Structures are given as C-alpha cells and as structure tokens.
C-alpha cells in the first residue's frame, strides 16, 4: 500500500503502467470508461432481476425516455463548463412546452410556428437570466433559482383555466413517434460510420503530414471499430423493435452540433477558458460576459427543446410539465458522466451518456415496480456518488498539478 500523502507524487515515474491507468481512472481522465462500466453493471443487475429490461422493446423505450432529459442536459453541460449552474432549465422546459401547446391547440398556430415560438421564448429567457447574471454579478445559482420559482407561474398563466392542454397535432406528436424503416436505419448507421472514419483518418493524416505527434494508426482504427460496433448494435436493437426513432436522431444531432461548437471553434475554446480561469480569459481579450450570456441562452433554448420533446411524448402539457425531478436529473446526468461542477471540464457527450445512465436506472426500477420512495433514494445516492467522485478527481488533479 502506498501512503496517500504528498510524497506519493514524487515517485510517479517509477509507477507501473497498471497503477498509472488506475490513477487516471480515478483522476477522471478516463471518466467516460468509468461511466460505461457503471452502465454495464446497471444493465446487468436489471437484466438479472428482470430479463425484459434488455428486450428491444424496452431498450427502444429507454431511448425515447432519455431524449427530453438528454436535450436539456446538453445546455446544462455548457453552463457547467463555465463553472456556473442553471436551476431554471426544468421550469423553462415546462413553460416553453406550454407556450407551444397553447399556441398550437388554442390559437391554431402551425406546429412549426408554435415550436419556433417556444424555442424563441427559451432564448429570450436565457438572454434575460444571462443579462441579470452578468450585468449585476448576481450568482447564477440565485438568478436561475428565481427563474425556477417564477417560470412555473408563467406556465400556469399560459395554460389558463383548463390547466391541461392535450396535443393532437401529428407533426408535434411525430417528433417522438416517428420511426424509420430498417433500411433507412442501416443506411444512417453506415453513413455515420463512414463520415466518422473519414474525419478521424483525415485529422490524423493532417497531423502526420505536418510532422506533429499523431495517435498510432492502430488506435484510430480501434476507435473507428468501437464506434462501428456501437452504431450497428444500436441500429440492430432499434430495428428489432419499431426502427430508429426520429427522437434519437434529434438528440444525437444536437450532440454532434454542440460537440463541434465546443471543441472545434473559437467560441467553444472561450467557454472552456472562462470556466477554467475567467480572469485569465478576460485578460486574453475574451468577452467573458458575452460568452456567458450566449451560453445561458443556449441552456434555456435546449431546455425549451427538451420540453417540446417531453410534451410530444406525453401527448399533453399540464401544470406539472417540467416540474418534479426533471431539473435534477438533467443536471445529475452530465455530472455522473464526468462533467465537472467546478467548470472547465466536460463534454457534450456527457449529456447523452448521463441521460442514458439516469434513464436506465429509472426505467429499470419502473420495470421492477419499485416504490417511488426507493427510486428517489437510489437516484439521490447515484448523484451523490457521482459528485463525490468528481470532487475526488479534482483533488487528484490538483495534487498532480503540484508535482
């Protein structure tokens, strides 16, 4: 046993590769692997308890269930990258869904306009909250807490006396009720794999041709292989049920888009910089407040998007849309998947991965017909475990930084 004190760092060089891998595993460098393993354990446990959990019908349902929370989580990831928090995303999702439903059902707006209005409302709310946060330097926690209290009030107002608005527009319901044929599913998978492989190989090639260090070709091929297997299995399972759902494509599409924004553009780089060291970012000439306001707008916009998908799946919007544990699940997901609450570390994919974990747990517990008391406690325990791991990983990184 090595002593866990400050001297540990000094013998870092003599450690075995295995120990190094273990350290990286804990320190969060391999956070995704940790989560995938945890997910495998969760699935195995539920499968042993209830084999129907792994049926293609249930796994398809799982995908549909995770869409709304996953979309909201994408915005949450961006806010967490800044080192801030947005507690209003659940409330905003409910309000946006209410706006869409009322405009479409009661005022006869076309579904596209109604969805557009709901998304615009999300952007406006984000602009407002971001402006208050940056202009008056009020902690984002408090600004969005006020939103958490206020927007459900607006939601009641929008819904009016009836309280519940049933949606029957085929376009809106189709968002979560459209499934593509087997052929289309396979074509989508193959095109996706081909594009990914081409981009990965080209990125490596451009580094090689400039004489920069590049990952080994074998490693790149391995990654392509893993993505291929994952995509083919996913399509195979979904095709075995109703086919690839449109909802899944929407979720993956948003993930891809924001993955590109956060990792390949100057704006994304600035998000990480502000989350890492806002003062350094400011001195480097980055418009820190501009970045913050835009990210809060994205968070509210994604909350609205998630709310629309949730409404489509529930066929209705009522007073409790976006309420309950929706907000906490949307924040817990990315944190479980490895996005840091302290800012500057995380990935848009954590939204998808986290939603998968969270939804798997709740779906599995539903299948086992557990009481809600147990469900709440288990979900809370999972979140607590994730946050503790995040804090430990942060400490480890700081210790490593002192070498």
């Amino acid at each position, binding site marked *: 046993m090595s002593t866990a004190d400050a001297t540990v760092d000094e013998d870092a060089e003599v450690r075995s590769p295995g120990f190094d891998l273990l350290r990286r595993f804990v320190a969060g460098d391999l956070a995704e692997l940790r989560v995938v393993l945890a997910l495998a354990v969760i699935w195995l446990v539920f499968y042993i308890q209830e084999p129907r959990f792994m049926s293609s019908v249930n796994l398809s349902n799982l995908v549909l269930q995770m869409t709304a929370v996953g979309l909201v989580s994408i915005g949450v990831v961006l806010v967490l990258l800044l080192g801030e928090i947005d507690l209003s995303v659940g409330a905003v999702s409910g309000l946006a869904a209410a706006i869409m439903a009322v405009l479409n059902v009661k005022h006869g707006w076309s579904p596209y306009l109604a969805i557009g209005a709901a998304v615009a409302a999300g952007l406006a709310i984000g602009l407002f909250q971001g402006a208050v946060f940056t202009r008056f330097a009020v902690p984002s926690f408090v600004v969005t807490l006020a939103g958490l209290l206020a927007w459900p009030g607006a939601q009641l107002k929008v819904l009016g006396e009836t309280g519940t608005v049933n949606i029957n527009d085929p376009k809106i319901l189709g968002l979560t009720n459209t499934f593509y044929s087997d052929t289309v599913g396979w074509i989508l998978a193959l095109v996706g794999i081909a594009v990914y492989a081409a981009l990965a190989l080209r990125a490596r090639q451009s580094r090689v041709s400039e004489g*920069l260090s590049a990952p080994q070709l074998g490693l790149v091929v391995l990654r392509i292989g893993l993505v291929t297997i994952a995509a083919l299995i996913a399509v195979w399972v979904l095709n075995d049920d109703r086919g690839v759902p449109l909802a899944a494509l929407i979720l993956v599409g948003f993930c891809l888009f924001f993955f590109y924004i956060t990792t*390949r553009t100057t704006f994304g780089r600035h998000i990480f910089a502000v989350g*890492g*060291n806002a003062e350094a970012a400011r*001195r*480097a000439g980055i418009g820190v407040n501009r970045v913050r306001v835009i990210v809060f707008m994205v968070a509210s916009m994604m909350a609205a998007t998630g709310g629309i998908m949730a409404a489509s799946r529930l066929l209705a919007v009522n007073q409790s849309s976006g309420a309950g544990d929706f907000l906490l699940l949307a924040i817990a997901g990315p944190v479980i998947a490895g996005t840091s609450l302290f*800012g500057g570390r995380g990935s848009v994919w954590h939204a998808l991965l986290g939603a998968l974990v969270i939804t798997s747990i709740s779906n599995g517990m539903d299948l086992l017909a557990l009481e809600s008391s147990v469900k709440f406690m288990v979900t809370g325990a999972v979140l607590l475990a994730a946050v503790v791991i995040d804090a430990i990983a942060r400490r480890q990184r700081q210790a*490593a930084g002192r070498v």
Partner: protein
Amino acid sequence: MNANGSTPVLALKGVSKSFGPVQALSDVDFEVQPGEVVALVGDNGAGKSTLVKTIAGIHTADEGTISFEGNEVTITSPTDAVHLGIATVYQDLALCDNLDVVENLFLGREETGDGPAAVLHQLDEVGMEKQTGELLENLAVTITDVRAEVGTMSGGQRQQVAIARSLLGEPKLVMLDEPTAALGVRQTAQVLELIKRLRDRGYGVVVISHNLADVFEVADRIFVLRLGQKAGEFGRDASQDQVVGAITGASGNGGKR
C-alpha cells in the same frame, strides 16, 4: 542617451503618479535598451508595481512623458500598451489550468482555417500546434507535450509558457513581475536562462524581483526604487551591499552613476 547612443525601446522622463495623498512615483526617469535586461528592485511599496503598471497601461501617469522607440506616446489602457509592443507577464501568470499549452498560448487570438473554416470560426489546431512547437524550440523551452494541460506542469514550466505567450504578439519590450518567485532552484535556473535568451533575441526586458541573487545573475542594469523615487542605478559590477544599501536607504544615492 545611453553610452552607445542607441534609441532606447522605452524611455520614461519625469514620471509621477499619486493615489490621493500617496505619492507612489515621483519624477522617475527610466530607460530600457533593446537587448537589455533591466532589473527593477526595491522594498515593498517602493513603487515597482506602480511603475510597471504605468508602463503596461493599467495606471496613467500624472506627469512626465513616455517614449517608445524614440516616439512620445500616451498609454491610457492595457490595449494601448499591447498595441505598441509592450508585453507584461504578471505574477499570477493568467493561465487556464484546464487548457493545454497550445490553447493557452493562443487564448484570445485563436487562428482559424481558411475558407469555410474561417466563416465557422473553426480552429486551425494543426497550424497553432506547429507554431507553438517552433516558438518553444526557438526559445529552447523544454516542454515535452504541448498538448498537456498547463495545470499539470511545474511552476517553472508554467512561467515559461506565460513568457512564451507574451511573445506571440511580437512585442519589443517584455516586463516580468517576480518571474522566479516560488520556484525551486532548477526551475529558477530555467526561467533565468529563458530571460537571457530574450535579451539575446533583442527584446528589451524589465524584471521585477526581490531575489538579488537572481537579479545579479541575469540583469545588465539594476534600477533601485525607494519611496517612489530612483534610489540608485547599478551595473553588473556593483556589489550586492551597494544595492541593498540603496534599497534600504542606508547609502542614500551613493550608488548613482
């Protein structure tokens, strides 16, 4: 102006600065030649930071003139100073620990690719990494992995990254605030070597330091401030006692050439 008659990269004449009743600088003349390392020493509150911040545009001088490369200039903001070619590395370094060396070097001035990539503000990672490698190699800075997070690096490496970053804007004058504070012996040596290389490449360098051993190791000229006034100016041949005397006021202006 100087013995060799060349134009100083920076010349302050009669600069004064007060904060309310506190006279932080009074009538200071200060010069830096290209390819010269000037150490700025003095006790706490002597006015070193005020002088550097005045040059860097954080403070504006109440009186006096500032000339840059022979032309009189007014510096009213940090942006003015940067545009003139004055780079300042503050003690806190202002690095993002969660970003790697390339990302930190180009922070706020990221390069994008051509064509559609420019429209999308898509980063030119390969180009930036290449330039980073060339810059660090040019400065003989040994950082094995320019894609390693800065937060995992030693204090000396971080200082070198911060200095390298200040050079990306192609400055003429580099000011370093306590570059060796809190560094170990070997790391201090690395940073001092880097400062010497800056001088060899023709930059004017101003170093604030409390450590006289470091100052004597690297400085061509030692400028002592005391109570906001010049208390002495020494060459490399001065003794440490003379400098200490000027800093503490024991020897008055005796060291002045």
